């Protein structure tokens, strides 16, 4: 279970999260919605442990471990995974090499045996197929010249390979056409399980047509302003974020 308690976070001296509370039980999928600038991406980065995000108060625990005391690699080993809104490009590093390095780093740290080359290739091919990823893409340098859809599918592929228990998806639908959203959502849904919790951050209701959440939280000015069931997302689709301090959607 993820427990966020009264979380305050500053970025460049400006307070972005102002006492955020959130509880995400094991096996549930919660959506985080909200207007631009409400702190959605900040929340994602703080959970993954990015530098430059100063926690001034509050706590975050994951399976009773103090997440904030851990570095980003340790969090990945503990099962936290962030699907980036803007995945990084790394020139010269084949996507396959990156995937293998990551999988084996995590396996090693979790006390599992590293995968042999043939076992790893089999695993990647199987997972890539489900996400309709062209095997040729995996030979290209990581995210270099990938289309928006390829980048996001590559994020979900990493999620499938690293077997996280807490998935944070930061605007995974942004920049995708409707077919790409469907493929990505199917990939995410295939990973839903009783042991896995997911936090789906999105600006639009659209993604939630495919990934139906158990709960929806609306962020406004660095706090959870309202929580509800999936119907809350539909309501926002009608009324927009005006009442939460944002412009109409």
């Amino acid at each position: 279970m993820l427990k966020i308690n009264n979380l305050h976070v500053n970025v460049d001296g400006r307070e972005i999260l102002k006492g955020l509370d959130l509880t995400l039980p094991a096996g549930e999928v919660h959506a985080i919605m909200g207007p631009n600038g409400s702190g959605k991406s900040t929340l994602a980065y703080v959970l993954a442990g990015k530098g430059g995000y100063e926690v001034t108060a509050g706590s975050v625990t994951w399976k009773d471990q103090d997440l904030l005391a851990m570095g980003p690699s340790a969090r990945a080993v503990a099962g936290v995974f962030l699907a980036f809104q803007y995945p990084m490009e790394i020139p010269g590093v084949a996507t396959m090499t990156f995937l293998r390095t990551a999988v084996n780093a995590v396996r090693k740290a979790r006390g599992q045996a590293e995968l042999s080359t043939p076992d790893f290739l089999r695993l990647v091919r199987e997972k890539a197929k489900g996400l309709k990823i062209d095997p040729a893409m995996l030979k290209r340098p990581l995210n270099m010249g990938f289309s928006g859809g390829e980048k996001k599918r590559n994020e979900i592929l990493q999620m499938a390979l690293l077997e996280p228990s807490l998935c944070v998806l930061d605007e995974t639908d942004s920049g995708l056409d409707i077919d790409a959203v469907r493929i990505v959502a199917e990939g995410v849904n295939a990973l839903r399980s009783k042991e896995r919790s997911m936090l789906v951050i999105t600006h639009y209701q659209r993604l939630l047509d495919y990934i139906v959440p158990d709960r929806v939280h609306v962020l406004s000015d660095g706090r959870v302003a309202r929580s509800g069931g999936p119907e809350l997302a539909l309501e926002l689709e009608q009324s927009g974020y005006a009442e939460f301090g944002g412009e109409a959607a």
Partner: protein
Amino acid sequence: MPAVQETVARVREIDVDKYKYGFTTKIESVRAPKGLSEEVVRFISAKKGEPDWLLNWRLEAYRRWLTMTEPTWANVRHPKIDFQDLYYYSAPKSTEGPKSLADVDPELLRTYEKLGIPLREQKMLARVQDSSEDDGDEEARTGDRRVAVDAVFDSVSVVTTFKDELAKAGVIFSSMSEAVREHPELVRKYLGSVVPITDNFFATLNSAVFSDGSFVYVPPGVRCPMELSTYFRINAEQTGQFERTLIIADKGAYVSYLEGCTAPMRDENQLHAAVVELVALDDAEIKYSTVQNWYPGDKEGKGGIYNFVTKRGDCRGARSKISWTQVETGSAITWKYPSCILRGDGSRGEFYSIAISNGYQQVDSGTKMIHLGRDTSSRIISKGIAAGHSNNTYRGLVSAHRRASNARNFTNCDSLLIGDKCGAHTVPYIEAKNASAVFEHEATTSKISDDQLFYCLSRGLSAEEAVALIVNGFVRDVLQHLPMEFMAETQKLIGISLEGSVG
């Protein structure tokens, strides 16, 4: 265990500070008196039983050297070197006399084994497993490849492996001293024909006092049946190493040669001033690769090797080709410009370089491509990585002679900075005296971004794994030009060299 992985495993085991080859070997040695004088030059020549022409050649160089001053144009700083405070000759005592594997001091064999360079021939079967996941092929490429090794310890060559088998193909691979004895006509014809004794301060010094090195001759039309390799090790204290390597590929011949270098950790700086000469005749090809990992000095910049090396290849024949690939990770100071003289019409020169500096290392390295013949072409790919407080300079010259019509050059220099206390510099000189020459130069400087690092960390990589991965991506274009045996090893070496550069 495959040889390259074994080497890497050994490198990791020998954990001395950050530098993994920092051990010394207790071995009795014979030394020349300290300092440099005509007597010392005569002493070295006499020790090696050299003919008069070679002694006179050395003496001419020595007298020339006395009139020269140390160059100061390189972007490196170091206290003045006292050339009288060095030993110019040191040889393991036990190797005097006949040299076969059985006669080699077992302590020496252990030293090379510790370095991952087994000299016993039966152990030279290196099964290489290529990291083929990049290709997505399940059948990993494997194969038995053999490498003949010439091991140079301090001033002398201690052993050369696989000589008999090479001789069957007509290839001569021996120490320079032996070549002087066995093939004086070849040595006399080619020695100093690429780097003359008057060339530069350090090359002239080398000509006077060079102690040993490797000699290779590949006869016309022969493709050398295995990789040749020389492994240099400085052991004795306060000893300069001045080896001389001469490689000749006769018409239509091909040879691939690799040199590796390490030294123990010592507080004082040690001097290494080598000369390498390559001669490629018509249609011949020489591929010369270096993995240089001399002791770089400690965290405060104390100690380390001063590496002042002159390397030059002469594409003497038409359509000949010389390709330099270097991986420079060690030395306190690196001053090195492997060059190509493109004399033959249609000849081609290549230079692929990875230079990594960390701590207080200073690197001033690059190449010269001198286009003299018609339709000559050259290609330069240089990747400099600076971390810590280090300074990394690429210095290169591309020139086309008046008669070098249709000369072509492509140069690409990329620098990568890690941290904010290091420096990367690019100093290209371009001279075209023929209007039909086409020279291209590209250069970039970049930093590993925090966002790239965080992305890797968030996937479970440690900071060091992340930096090694990103740097290996950065140097990928050059890595591909290394002999397969050394690619994996070099990738690990890059990781080790950059330890402590982040966090």
